[in-house]
């Protein structure tokens, strides 16, 4: 096992453990903090994949905005500090079965696929991927339409969220 593989296994184990804690911890604020750790692990995976820009954006958007919003929502939607009652619904056993079946099926299919043994091409020959991504997002030959549609979606979501949460 090379050093890089060791780091990957470490990050993957941390992320998956945090993810399991997110869906099983009864205390909601703690679950949100575990979510932050899981999202941070995903950012680490992006670093391993040589996507430094996406890793940093992951931290800014998910940890800096989404996770903080969630903690706010958790704290605003309760009367007391402690969570009471069961946090899982009656069909959680079935849910676990479905999730396990999905994971089993996916792993089975993935290990059979010819792409599974693909190795990463050499990265050092590539020009700056950040500049490449920036150009791709605004060039008409590439992704300017999806990019603009995404920004319109964000604007619409912002207006909608303000309207829905407005105290009348």
């Amino acid at each position: 096992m090379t050093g890089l593989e060791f780091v990957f296994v470490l990050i993957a184990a941390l992320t998956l453990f945090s993810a399991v804690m997110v869906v099983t911890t009864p205390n909601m604020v703690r679950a949100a903090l575990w979510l932050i750790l899981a999202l941070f692990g995903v950012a680490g995976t992006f670093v391993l994949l040589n996507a430094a820009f996406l890793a940093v954006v992951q931290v800014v958007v998910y940890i800096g905005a989404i996770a903080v919003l969630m903690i706010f929502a958790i704290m605003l939607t309760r009367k007391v500090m402690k969570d009471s009652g069961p946090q899982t619904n009656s069909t959680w056993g079935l849910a676990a079965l479905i999730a396990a079946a999905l994971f089993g099926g996916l792993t089975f299919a993935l290990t059979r696929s010819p792409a599974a043994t693909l190795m990463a091409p050499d990265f050092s020959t590539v020009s700056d991927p950040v500049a490449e991504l920036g150009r791709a997002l605004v060039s008409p030959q590439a992704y300017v339409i999806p990019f603009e549609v995404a920004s319109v979606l964000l604007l619409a979501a912002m207006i909608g969220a303000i309207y829905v949460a407005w105290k009348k």
Partner: protein
Amino acid sequence: MPLSWYLIFAAALFSIGLYGVLSRRNAVAILMGIELMLNAVNINLVAFWRYSDLASIAGQAFAVVVFAVAAAEVAVGLALVIAVYRRRETVAADEINLMKW
């Protein structure tokens, strides 16, 4: 490190997120499960970019769009949760059943 490592890792993350969505009662917890699933998708997109043609930036561009969609989804979702809480004083998804049947 073969591509399958990343793909299996993403599959596990997606399954855990799916379990969270299906089993939790709190609406915010369901949103957290959805976030985990979206992150698993992003890992796949970036891994496919890294392991195939590096010159085409499609994987990263899609990941950026997924970020935007996730942010929009959380903003609207949490606004709905807060609006429901104001009216019904609960965020448990199985108690918000006025529109059922």
